[in-house]
C-alpha cells in the first residue's frame, strides 16, 4: 500500500505534462479576467471562494452555539443573542453554503466536462448567478452586522411577520435574491444536459453525477420560486402591513408552513442529491468498478426529485395540520426513502469484487455511506407519526439533519473536492494530512451528534439557550466533538492553499479514473477539450469486458 503520495497507484499520469500547457488558470491574469469570466471553471472557483467564506461564518456561529451549550445556564450570551446565533447558523449554512456547495462548485466545474461540452449553455447567466449569490449574501450579512435575525431559519409566521423586531426583511430578501442564483444554476444545468452532450453521449452513458445534478436542477426550478414568493409575503406583511398569514385577521399561520416546506423539504434533496452523485463517482473510481445497478441509481435520483415534492407535511405533524393529511405525508415519506435505500445498497454492492484503494476521497465516500444511512434511517423514524409526537422539535431532529447534511453532504463535498482537486488545480495535496483530517471529521462528527439523539429522546427541545442540568453531560460530549470536527475542517483549508503553490504536479489523471473529465489535461484548457470527444462506451467501463453497452442484460430492460 502506498502511504507517501497519492500519486503512486496511478497508471496513466505523466507528472511532467501538467503545467506549461495553456489551461483555464493561466489563460489570463488579473482581477478583471476573473470577475468578468464566462468560463464555467473559473466561475466554479469564484463560487468555491464565496461558499467557503460562508461556511466559515456558519461554522463560527456553530462554534458559539456549542460553547453556549457547554453549561445548562445560559451564561455566555444573552438569550436573544443565542436565538440569532442559531438562526444565522441555519440560514447561512443552508442557503449560502449547503445548497450552492456541490452544484455551484463541483457541478459548475464538472457538468460541461463530463458531458463533453465547451461550456454551460448560458455562460453569462452563470456569471450572473455568482453575482446574484453575493448580492443575496450581502443582504444577509447586512442583517447579521446590524444584529441579526431571530426567527429560526424557518421564518415561521406570525413570529417573523409581527413579533420579531430584528432584521427579518433584509435576511428574507437575502434568501429571496439567493434563490435566483440557485435557479440560474439549475436552469443552466438542465438546458446543458439536454442540449449540449457530446456526440455519442446518450442518457445512459451519462455519469451518475450528471443524473443527480439533473434531478437536483428539476427540484430547484420547481421549488425555489415558492420559497421566493413566501418570503416576499413575509416581507410584505412586515413592511406594507398586508395580512396574509396574520391570525388577527383570520389568516392562517399554518399556510405559511405549507408554502415554506413545499420548498424546504425538496430543498433537503437539493442538498443531498448532488452529494449522492459525487459518491457514485468516488465509489466507482476507487473500486475501479462500474456502479452496481447503474440504471436503478440513475432513476432513483429522478424518483427522489419527484417524490420529494409530496412529503413536505412531515414537518407539520403537530402544527395543527389535518391528521388525515399527516397520515398521507407519513406514508409518502416512507416511499421517498426507497430510492435512497436503493442507492445505499448499490454503492455498497459496487465494492463487491472491486479493486478498492483507500485514498482520501474514498475515505470520505465510505464515511458518507455510513453516516447518511444513520441520518436517513432516523429520518424514516421521525416520519413515523407515533415517534414524531415525542421527538419533534427536540435534539433528535437536530441530530437527524446534521447526520445527513454534515455527515452526508459535507462529507461528499469534501470527498469531491479531494477527488477533483488535481483536476481543478493540477496539484496534489499531502496524503497523510488529508487522511488524518478525514478521520478527525468522522470521529469528531459522531462525537458531536450521536449524543444529540439521546438528548432528543430524553426531551431536550431544540433552539434552547439554557436547559435542565441533567442534560449537561451529553452536551459537553457534543461540544467536545465539535471542536475535533472543527480541526478536521480547518486542516484542508490550509493544505489546499498550500498545495496550489507547493503541491506535487498531479498529471492529467492521478487516480486512473475513467470519465470524460479525465480525458482532458489537468487543469483543463479554457475550451475544455482540444477536440470534442466522441463517446463510444458506457460509463465506468473499468473492466475491458464492459466497453460495450450491455443491452442484453436483464437490468437494461428496466425503464
Amino acid at each position, binding site marked *: 500500500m502506498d502511504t507517501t503520495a497519492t500519486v503512486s497507484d496511478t497508471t496513466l499520469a505523466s507528472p511532467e505534462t501538467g503545467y506549461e500547457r495553456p489551461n483555464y488558470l493561466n489563460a489570463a491574469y488579473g482581477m478583471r479576467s476573473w470577475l468578468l469570466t464566462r468560463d464555467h471553471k473559473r466561475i466554479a472557483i469564484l463560487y468555491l471562494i464565496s461558499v467557503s467564506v460562508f461556511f466559515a461564518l456558519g461554522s463560527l456561529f456553530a462554534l458559539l452555539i456549542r460553547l453556549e451549550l457547554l453549561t445548562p445556564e445560559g451564561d455566555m450570551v444573552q438569550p436573544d443573542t443565542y436565538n440569532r446565533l442559531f438562526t444565522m447558523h441555519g440560514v447561512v449554512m443552508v442557503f449560502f453554503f449547503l445548497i450552492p456547495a456541490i452544484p455551484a462548485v463541483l457541478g459548475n466545474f464538472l457538468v460541461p466536462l463530463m458531458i463533453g461540452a465547451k461550456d454551460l449553455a448560458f455562460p453569462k447567466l452563470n456569471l450572473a448567478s455568482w453575482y446574484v449569490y453575493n448580492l443575496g449574501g450581502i443582504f444577509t450579512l447586512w442583517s447579521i452586522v446590524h444584529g441579526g435575525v431571530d426567527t429560526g431559519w424557518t421564518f415561521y409566521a406570525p413570529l417573523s411577520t409581527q413579533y420579531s423586531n430584528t432584521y427579518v426583511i433584509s435576511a428574507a430578501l437575502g434568501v429571496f435574491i439567493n434563490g435566483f442564483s440557485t435557479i440560474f444554476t439549475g436552469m443552466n444545468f438542465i438546458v446543458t444536459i439536454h442540449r449540449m452532450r457530446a456526440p455519442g453521449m446518450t442518457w445512459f452513458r451519462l455519469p451518475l453525477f450528471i443524473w443527480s445534478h439533473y434531478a437536483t436542477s428539476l427540484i430547484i426550478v420547481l421549488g425555489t420560486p415558492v420559497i421566493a414568493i413566501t418570503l416576499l409575503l413575509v416581507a410584505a406583511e412586515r413592511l406594507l402591513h398586508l395580512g396574509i398569514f396574520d*391570525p388577527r385577521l383570520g389568516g392562517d399561520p399554518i399556510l405559511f408552513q405549507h408554502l415554506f416546506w413545499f420548498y424546504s423539504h425538496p430543498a433537503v434533496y437539493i442538498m443531498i442529491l448532488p452529494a449522492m452523485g459525487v459518491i457514485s463517482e468516488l465509489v466507482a473510481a476507487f473500486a475501479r468498478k462500474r456502479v452496481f445497478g447503474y440504471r436503478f441509481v440513475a432513476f432513483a435520483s429522478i424518483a427522489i426529485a419527484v417524490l420529494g415534492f409530496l412529503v413536505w407535511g412531515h414537518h407539520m405533524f403537530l402544527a395543527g395540520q389535518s391528521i388525515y393529511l399527516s397520515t398521507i405525508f407519513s406514508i409518502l415519506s416512507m416511499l421517498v426513502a426507497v430510492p435512497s435505500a436503493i442507492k445505499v445498497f448499490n454503492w*455498497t454492492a459496487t465494492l463487491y469484487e472491486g479493486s478498492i484503494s483507500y485514498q482520501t476521497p474514498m475515505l470520505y465516500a465510505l464515511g458518507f455511506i455510513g453516516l447518511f444511512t444513520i441520518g436517513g434511517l432516523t429520518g424514516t423514524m421521525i416520519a413515523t407519526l407515533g415517534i414524531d*409526537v415525542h421527538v419533534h422539535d427536540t435534539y433528535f431532529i437536530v441530530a437527524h439533519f446534521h447526520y445527513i447534511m454534515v455527515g452526508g453532504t459535507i462529507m461528499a463535498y469534501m470527498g469531491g473536492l479531494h477527488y477533483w482537486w488535481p483536476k481543478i488545480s493540477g496539484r496534489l495535496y499531502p496524503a497523510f494530512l488529508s487522511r488524518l483530517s478525514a478521520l478527525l471529521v468522522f470521529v469528531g462528527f459522531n462525537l458531536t451528534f450521536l449524543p444529540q439523539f439521546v438528548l432528543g429522546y430524553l426531551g431536550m427541545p431544540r433552539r434552547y439557550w439554557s436547559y435542565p442540568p441533567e442534560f449537561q453531560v451529553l452536551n459537553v460530549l457534543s461540544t467536545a466533538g465539535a471542536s475535533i470536527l472543527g480541526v478536521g475542517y480547518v486542516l484542508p483549508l490550509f493544505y489546499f492553499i498550500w498545495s496550489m503553490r507547493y503541491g506535487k504536479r498531479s498529471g492529467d489523471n492521478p487516480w486512473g479514473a475513467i470519465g470524460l473529465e479525465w480525458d482532458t489535461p489537468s487543469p483543463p484548457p479554457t475550451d475544455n477539450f482540444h477536440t470534442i470527444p466522441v463517446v463510444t462506451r458506457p460509463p465506468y467501463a473499468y473492466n475491458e469486458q464492459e466497453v460495450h453497452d450491455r443491452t442484453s442484460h436483464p437490468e437494461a430492460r428496466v425503464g
Partner: protein
Amino acid sequence: METNLPLFPESASSVAPQIDALFVVWSVISVFFTLLIAGLIIYFMARYRRRAADEVGLPERAPFWLEIAWSAIPLAIMLAMFAWGTQVFVNVYRPPADAIQYSSIGKQWMWKFQHPTGQREINTLHIPVGQPIKLLLQSEDVIHSFFVPAFRVKQDAVPGRYTAVWFEATKPGVYHMFCAEYCGGEHSKMIGSVVAMEPRQYEEWLAGGPAGRSVTASGADLFQQLACHTCHRTGTAGMAARAPRLEGLFGHQVRLEDGGTLVADENYLRESILNPMAKVTAGWQPIMPTYQGQVTEEQLTQLISYIRSLAGEGGIESGSGAGGGPNEVGAAGGQVDSPEPQTAGPARSETDPQ
C-alpha cells in the same frame, strides 16, 4: 457539573409505553441496517483491497432480483412501521370519552392554565394521576408547543384557533413541561412542570388553592352578561325563537345555510361567536352580532365551556385533536396582549424533577 447521565426518559403516561415500544423497535431496525451496511463496507474493503496498481474490478453482475429485494424489504418494513406508528398516533390524539378538559393559553413566554373547577396556574399544572385530561390549547401571540417529555405528548398551540392534546399520568411526580416550538426571545424559559398527584392529594390541593368559579359557571355568567340569552333562550318554550337553541349543539351535526354540514366543535363555536356571518346555521337569519374584540380569549373559553355543558349528558367530548376545527382556518383572536412576560403571574417555578 451534574454527573448523572440519564439515557432514557422517564415514562409516566398511559401512551408512553406505546411510543417507547415503537421507538425501541425502530431503533433496533435502524441499528441492524447500519451495522449491516457498515459491516459489508468493512468486509469488502478488506477482502477486495487493491493489490496491484493497475488492477481493476471485475465486471459488474447486477442481478435484477437483488435490486427488487433491497427495495421491497425496506419498503415492507417501513409500511409496517407506518401502520403501527399511525395507530399509536391516533391513540395519542383521540381523547377518551371520560377526559376532563383543562384549558391552557400560551403566550410569550408563559403557559396559563385553568382547571375545570376554576383554579388558575402559571407554568405549573397540577393534575390527578389515572385520570385522562384533555388540554384545550390556544395562543395569544405566536405559535407555541406544549411538550411533556415524560408523557411523550406534544402539540402546537396556534394563534387564532384551538388545538388539543390529552394525556393520562400513571405515576405521581414532577415532570418537565417545555415549550417546544420556537417562539422568540425567552423560548427556552417558557418551561415549567406538571405535578401529577394521587387523586386524593389533588382534591386537597384544589381545596387549598384559591377556589374560583368553575370555567363553566363563569361561562354561564358571561352568557347572561353579554345578553346572549336574549336570543338563545335556554330551555324556554313558547316565545318565538330568534336564534337556534344551543342545547345539544356541541358535538353534533349542524346544517349550514350554504348547504354544507359540519360537526360543532370548539373551533366552530369560536367562529360562531367571533364571526357569526362566516357560517350561518340553516333556517336562521344572520342577525347575530359579532363579539370580536368584546371577549377575551379566556372569556371565549368560558363561553365555549358553558355551551359544551349544554350538550346534554355531560360526558360528551370533542375529539378535535390536532385536527382543529373542521374546515376552518380559525377566527380572529381579536385581542393580543402586548407581551410583558415578567410581570404577570407568580414567579415561574424552576422545579427540578424528582
